[in-house]
């Protein structure tokens, strides 16, 4: 192509030349779901990190004279306890703030553990194929057939019920299936790619190829799975704690707060509404970020 046609094309296409990072920023900002999700998630993360400094009360401090105070928008609410207090007189807002730390850390750690397990299995299955693939696919199928919640509950009960660590390990051991499936299929797609072939030609070791060449290229897909599994783990933690086999009292897990408020919900519905809505907001935000990232990864994005 001659130089003149090149310049003419740029002129006729009428497109201003936009730097790459600006285009990415525009896409992120243009994607309403991603923007909303990351804003909510950002706020929750900051609040959780700052909990010791911004919480108005000690989340564990009981006060029998201040039991079941309704939230501030209620007639009998006070500004001292914006979201009211629970049956032991503990400040609801403070417990929510500390509870966010539990949800976020369990979600993140469980997703990291399951990510490690699932990615390893998936990459090996996808890269080596053949018998390795058959065995790992079989393991994945078996894992999918296990009812997660039931097994988690049974194991938690046998282990002697939960601390944050037990819940993290349990969920980490159970939630790796989607990582494995995605890692496997993306690896299969890349296995024959040129950059892998050229790495083989120059004599790179298999572990080098897998970790340095392959992994960075499937990372974006794995990050999307990571967000979804994080949301999944947070919901499961809440469920386990709600049923009494997750995080134990007096820890301010949101699931536990709903469980403790259950017997009061008929007359004071806010005791379950507040932690429930918070939980939903967090999971919604993470899911929105995950969906947004997936759209970003898609070749054309969304307009």
């Amino acid at each position, binding site marked *: 192509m001659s130089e003149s046609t090149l310049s003419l094309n740029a002129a006729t296409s009428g497109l201003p030349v936009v730097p790459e990072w600006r285009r990415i920023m525009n896409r992120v900002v243009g994607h309403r*779901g991603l923007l909303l999700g990351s804003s909510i998630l950002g706020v929750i993360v900051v609040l959780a990190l700052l909990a010791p400094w911004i919480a108005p009360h000690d989340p564990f401090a009981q006060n029998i004279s201040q039991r079941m105070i309704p939230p501030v928008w209620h007639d009998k609410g006070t500004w001292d306890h914006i979201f009211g207090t629970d049956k032991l007189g503990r400040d609801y807002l403070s417990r929510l703030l500390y509870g966010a730390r539990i949800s976020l850390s369990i979600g993140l750690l469980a997703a990291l553990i399951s990510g490690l397990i699932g990615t390893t299995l998936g990459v090996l299955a996808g890269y080596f194929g053949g018998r390795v693939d058959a065995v790992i696919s*079989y393991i994945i*199928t*078996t894992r*999918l*057939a*296990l*009812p*997660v*919640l*039931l*097994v988690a*509950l*049974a*194991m938690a*009960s*046998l*282990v*002697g019920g939960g601390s944050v660590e037990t819940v993290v390990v349990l969920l980490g051991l159970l939630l790796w299936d989607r990582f494995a499936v995605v890692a496997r299929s993306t690896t299969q797609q890349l296995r024959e790619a040129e950059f892998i072939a050229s790495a083989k030609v120059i004599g790179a070791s298999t572990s080098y190829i897998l970790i340095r060449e392959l992994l960075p290229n499937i990372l974006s897909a794995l990050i999307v799975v990571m967000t979804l599994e994080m*949301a999944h783990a947070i*919901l499961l933690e*809440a*469920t386990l704690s*709600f*049923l*009494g*086999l997750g995080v134990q009292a007096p820890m301010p897990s949101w*699931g536990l707060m*709903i469980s403790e408020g*259950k017997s009061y*919900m*008929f007359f004071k*519905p806010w005791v*379950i*509404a507040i932690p*429930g809505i918070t*939980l*939903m*907001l967090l*999971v*919604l935000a993470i*899911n*929105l970020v995950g*969906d947004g990232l997936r759209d970003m990864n898609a070749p054309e994005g969304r307009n």
Partner: protein
Amino acid sequence: MLVFIFRRLLVAFSVAITVSIVSFMLLHFSGDLAVSIAGPDSTAEQVEQIRIDFGLDKPVVFQYFDWVWSALQGDFGRSYYFQDSVMSLITERMPVTLTLGAVSLALATVVAIPLGVIAAIKQDTWVDRLALTIACVGQAMPSFWFALTLIVIFAVNLHWLPAGGSSTWQHFVLPAIALGYYATPAMMRLTRTGMLEVLGSDYIRTARSKGLSETSVIFKHALRNAVIPVVALAAVELGFMLGGSIVIESVFSLKGLGQLAWDAISRNDYPVVQAVVLIIAVFYIVLTLLADVLNAMLDPRLRVR
């Protein structure tokens, strides 16, 4: 077709066996069952006695084969807590859970597919956005919390429906909504993306070029193809719902399999736990198998193979 089904059956059977091994091992390695059964106040002698009584002193492999051998004959042992055979407990509780699962799935399908179709046809309009928002929020809602909210609204405040129990059909409405909503967002989204993909396909253009009505294009030509993956998903979701019924049944005190599992778990009644895990896993395996067969029946390209 027969070969296909036979091969899938073989895989399904071996997966079921593996699941039974895995669930057996998981429970055996999670803690000392004899100690759990005996309870915290028991002496060392009592624990030893229980170990011998329940055959827990034998090697795990022997225990497993004993268990599998009886299980294949329909005998899952005796429940420690209920003092009844596990099999009769399960057969007694099964109908409630199956009813709940079936109604929930029906409800989810009836909501999800039309919503997905409408969202796809009205892509990028407010209808589409509303449907997607509902799906997003639905996916983020913890099911136990949704169940409690339903009770507060419909049982306590409006007095429309009972809050717990399983004696009449009204008792199943709220649990079915609570359980069914869980599968709805995923099915709706799959219907929507499936429809969008199909509506952009060449054969839809062909159908339009033949001057067919929009109804015929959408319902005859598009939906039939878009719904195939949704059928598979529905079967898988039913499997998940049976597993998830433990939460819903305990919230609504429905006397089903989930409630049984929950009682068994909280009392370390592990023969029951093991049996329920296996049965739900087998249900899931059968359902995925069914999904494959259904897919093959719906999609002529798979049928001939």
